[in-house]
Every structure is written in structure tokens, then in C-alpha cells.
């Protein structure tokens, strides 16, 4: 018994070491730096300063990421839903081939493309003007919060759709077909039958997307101006302009708290699911 226990510990040691060195240590270090008081000792001065200077940016970040997550959910449900229940084979296979492309484009490249695509006299508006839908003086630049959201959704929706389509494909087709035979429309079938069954997958995809979007620096930096801006930009500015790690870490801790809240929601949800299954 004790031998197998040692062996088990040995087996888990590399993973444990890796996690502690690359995750636990930096996390503890950054929290410690965030609560260090400039005058010495422990205090919340860094957080006070973070709120004083960046309260607007904190709200802005929550706003951007929340809207982007919601839209990512909608778009990915539409894509995955059509892939599962579409009835035009060439459309389904075309979409299946096309929708994954953004997965292979890094954020920074996406941001660079959006910079010329969404500008006032950019490709999108020029196309609309040339097709006669808009007058040149009616066009507006989308290089602000809207640009960030468009880039995030463009980048994350395929990721969630990939997970979701996988989840939907694994469902028992009989349920769907039974509902269809009884006369339910495809939309109703999607919303009332399919979605509840794949909700856990959707949740995981959205939470991962939320965390990823919260951590992206290149997109807010390149797509939109800096007032207001997202927390990642403020963190980098705090370090680069002032060499001020404590306040940067305080902002970091604030973003951990945002992700912690979503993680908590997820865990609660997962736990309830498990209990329901066990019961």
C-alpha cells in the first residue's frame, strides 16, 4: 500500500512541480505585490489607486467581454445548430469547411486586418458605399468598442461552435427526429431539445472564451483608441510608463476576480449537474 502510494506521488510530482512553478508561484507573487503598501507593510493602497485611475476601464472591460461572450454564444449556436440540423447538404459542408478558419488566425493578425477593414474609409464601408447602400458621409468608423467586440466574436465564435457542433453530433438523433416528426420547426427543435442537452458544453466554451478575451492585449491596443480601454492595456502601460508593478498587479488581481466569478458560476453549475445525475 505504502509503496504504491510513493509511486503515485512520484508519478504526480512532475505535474505538481510544473503547476506550482508556473502557476501557483507567480499567482502568489502577483497577489503579494498587489497588496504591498508603498509605505511598507500590507495594504490596499494599490487597489485604491487602481480604482481611482481605472474604474472606468474596469467597467468597460466587463462590458466588452460580457457582450462579446453573449454574441459569441449566439453566433456559435447558429453555426453549430445549422451544421447539425441543416437540410441543404452543400450549404452544411460549405459552412463546415469555412467556419473554422478564424481559429488559425492569431489575435494580433485579426486585429491588424480589422484595422483596415472597419475603418471609416475602410473596406467594409467602401463596399457598402460602392454598392449604393450608404452615402460616403453617412459612414462611421467602427474602430472603437464595436471593433473590439467584432474582432473577439469573429475569433471566438468558431472555437465555441467547434465544441458545440461536436456536442450536438454526439446526441442521439432519434430525439431530434422524433420532435421533427411531431411537427416541431427546426428552430424550436434547436432551442427546446438540442440546446438544453448541450448546455454544459456551451458553458465550458463560453467561460473559456471569456477568460481568453479578458487576457488579450493586442486587440484593444490595435483596434481601438486608448480612452477608455481594456485592463490589459492599462496593465502594460502601468509597467511600461512607470515601471509600477504593484498597481499593475492590483489590476491583474481585479481581472483574476472577474474570471474567478465565472469559474465559480461554472463550478456551481457543474456540481449541480453531477448531483442531479447521481440522484
Amino acid at each position, binding site marked *: 500500500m505504502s509503496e504504491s502510494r510513493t509511486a503515485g506521488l512520484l508519478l504526480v510530482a512532475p505535474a505538481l512541480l510544473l503547476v506550482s512553478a508556473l502557476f501557483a508561484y507567480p499567482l502568489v507573487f502577483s497577489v503579494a505585490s498587489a497588496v504591498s503598501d508603498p509605505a511598507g507593510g500590507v495594504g490596499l493602497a494599490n487597489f485604491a489607486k487602481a480604482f*481611482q485611475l481605472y474604474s472606468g476601464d474596469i467597467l468597460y472591460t466587463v462590458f466588452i467581454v460580457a457582450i462579446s461572450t453573449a454574441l459569441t454564444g449566439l453566433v456559435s449556436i447558429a453555426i453549430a445548430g445549422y451544421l447539425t440540423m441543416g437540410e441543404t447538404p452543400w450549404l452544411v459542408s460549405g459552412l463546415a469547411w469555412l467556419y473554422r478558419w478564424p481559429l488559425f488566425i492569431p489575435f494580433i493578425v485579426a486585429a491588424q486586418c480589422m484595422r483596415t477593414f472597419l475603418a471609416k474609409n475602410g473596406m467594409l464601408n467602401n463596399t457598402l458605399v460602392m454598392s449604393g447602400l450608404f452615402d460616403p458621409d453617412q459612414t462611421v*468608423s467602427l474602430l472603437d468598442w464595436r471593433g473590439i467586440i467584432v474582432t473577439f466574436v469573429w475569433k471566438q465564435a468558431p472555437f465555441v461552435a467547434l465544441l458545440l457542433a461536436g456536442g450536438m453530433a454526439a446526441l442521439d438523433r432519434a430525439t431530434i427526429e422524433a420532435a421533427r416528426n411531431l411537427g416541431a420547426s427546426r428552430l424550436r427543435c434547436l432551442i427546446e431539445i438540442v440546446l438544453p442537452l448541450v448546455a454544459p458544453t456551451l458553458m465550458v466554451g463560453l467561460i473559456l472564451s471569456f477568460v481568453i478575451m479578458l487576457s488579450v492585449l493586442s486587440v484593444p*491596443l490595435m483596434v481601438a483608441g486608448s*480612452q477608455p480601454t481594456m485592463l490589459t492595456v492599462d496593465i502594460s502601460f502601468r509597467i511600461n510608463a512607470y515601471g509600477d508593478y504593484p498597481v499593475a498587479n492590483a489590476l491583474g488581481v481585479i481581472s483574476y476576480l472577474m474570471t474567478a466569478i465565472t469559474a465559480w458560476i461554472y463550478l456551481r453549475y457543474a456540481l449541480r449537474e453531477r448531483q442531479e445525475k447521481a440522484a
Partner: protein
Amino acid sequence: MYTRIIMSALATSLLAAPAGGQTLNVATAGDQNMVDYVRDYLGPLFEKTHRGVRVVSVGTGPGDAGSQKIYEKLAAQKSAGTTTWDLDVIVIHQKIAGQMAAEQLLAKYKDDIDTGKLVSRETAANALGADVSGYVMPMFHSQTALAYNPDITKDIPGSYADLAEWVKKNPRKFGYNGIKGGMSGVAFVTGWVYAFSGNAEQMIKGPYEAATKAAWDGLLGKLKDFNKNVIITPGNAGTLDMLNRGEIAVGPVWVDMFYTWMAEGKLPPSMKLKLITPGMPGQPMYYAVPAKAANARLAEAFVALATSPEVQAEGIIKRFNWYPGIDAKYLEGKLDRAAWDKLFTDISPDELAGKGQPFPITPYFNDVLELYEKKVAN
């Protein structure tokens, strides 16, 4: 026996390597044009005169952020007690130079090289209030100014006060990049504080008094109102992009980037520059050699070449449109008239001398940035 053979073989191979079988590591902070300058122009030129030497150039990113990265790398090597550091030549901004000199991260090399004597501007000794004499050689000087498109607007404001009125009549026709997207926006904001505070001289020369900033609330509130009528662009290049597409008519830019973009056809040739009163800041970039650079000698030779009149004329002025780092009188005869005149098409040497200002000393600089974050951006 075998060990000895291997050892001696190794020793011979090391000794036999040509004197220049070396790699010179150059780290450059700043926009892409600075990295291009070292990689495409200066590096190959140095390799030509020093056979066997390979110049490896890395860019560490635009703005003070790039310099901060270089500082952190060297500071880490110093505190780790490393005997030789792996950067040989660094190109850094003013703000970090004083700190690096004070923390003994830099070698005092200026008087060891011939071109050290050719430098005349005060910035070679004084970096935002910090004494850096001997530690740095100015690579070039650059200047910010307002770029404008005369096809869109004819009446260009001549001063900060005029500009504040102008944006009310021309909403969303002026754009700048705030303070988090590069130095042209920082320069614009600094110029605003110079213009309306009346503290410009003290901010530039010191001494620092923490109480000075207490009187800035009014001018920052005015800047916040000003911002309601302008567009905040994404970065130095973002301002130029929007000028190019005609989305804004006026915006602060770096003079060198302006001319370079125009030469590359990325700005309409009709665009012009104006240096508004009471003035806008500019800055040098510095060549420095880390205190424990592995190839210190070679590094000095590299900087000597980079600051020689020939290279300053051909590389700095003609190809990259910067103002020279060394005294302009040493460039006579090295440069054709047209290339020199092009630098001063829109901004005359007198205007540059009168309205080209340095950035403030570091504590005031930080005050400007942080108060902007507190009172204007948030």
C-alpha cells in the same frame, strides 16, 4: 589522453577563429523604423567594415515600453551577478537612460570614441533632468508636430489655444492617440501642459516640486472637454493611417515618420507639418553600451560608426528623415543640399530651435501622465 586532444583541438579552434568571429547583439527600442534602420542599414554597413562580425538586431517594441524591456533584462543580469551581459549595444529612450546610468547598468564610453567630440546638444549630458554625460551618444533627434491635410482644411491653428477653439468648430477632425498608444500623443499632451500651465521652464529644468501639479486641474479639465470633440486614434501609426484615409484632418505625428510614410506613398504628398506655439516636445534616442557588455570594444566601434558624419548624413538624415544626433556643422560636405532642405520644408531651423522643446524631467513627466489618466481619461 583523448581529453587532452579534444581540449587542445578546442583551444586551437577558438584561437584560430578570425578576430571578428563574433556576434554583436544590438537591442533597439522604438517604432519599426528604428529596428529597420539597424537591421537593414547600420548592421550590414558594420559587417562590411568588420569582417567576420555578425550583427544581430532585435526590436523590443515602441515607446518607453521597449526601453523598459531592455532595462529589465540588464537589471536582472546585474542582480544575478552575471559576469558578461548578452546585449552589446542598446538603443534607448531618454526616460530610462537616467535610471540606467544611476543604477550602473551603462558603460562610460563617450570619451573613448572619436565621434564623442562631435556632439553638441545638451541632451547628450542631460536626459530629462538626469546626468547621463559620458554614458550615451545621441543617435538622432526627433520632433513632433501637427500634420494636416490642406485638401480638407485650410485654416490651421497656430497655437494650442487656437487649436482648442478650432476643434469646437471642426468636431472630430482632429485626432491623437491619447497617452497609451505611443509617444506622439504623449508629446501632444505634454505640449498642452506646457502651453496652459506656465510651468514649462520649471518642468524642463527642475527643480521638482510636488505642489506644482496642484494648479493643473483647470487645464486638464479643458483637455477633457477638448477630447469630446476629437478622435482618439490607435497609436502613432493609427494617427497617420487616419490622416492618410482622410478620416481626420489634423493630428500630432513624429516628423521622421511623417516624411518616411510620405516617401513610401502611404500619405498624400500634399500633406504638411506645422509646429504650433508655444511648442511641442521632441526627443533623442541614445546609443549606450551596457556596463558588462560581452563585446564592449566592438560595441564602441559600432557606435563610433553610427555617429560618424558620413553615417549620420546618409542614414539618419537622408534615408530615415531624422535630425542628426551630432552637431550639424560636421555634416557639411557630406550631404547634398536637397536632402538637408527636405528636412526643413515645413519647419524652419529657427522654428525648430524656438519651438522644439524637450520632455519634462522624469517626476514631472510622471505627473503629467498620471494626472491625465486620473482627470482626463477616467
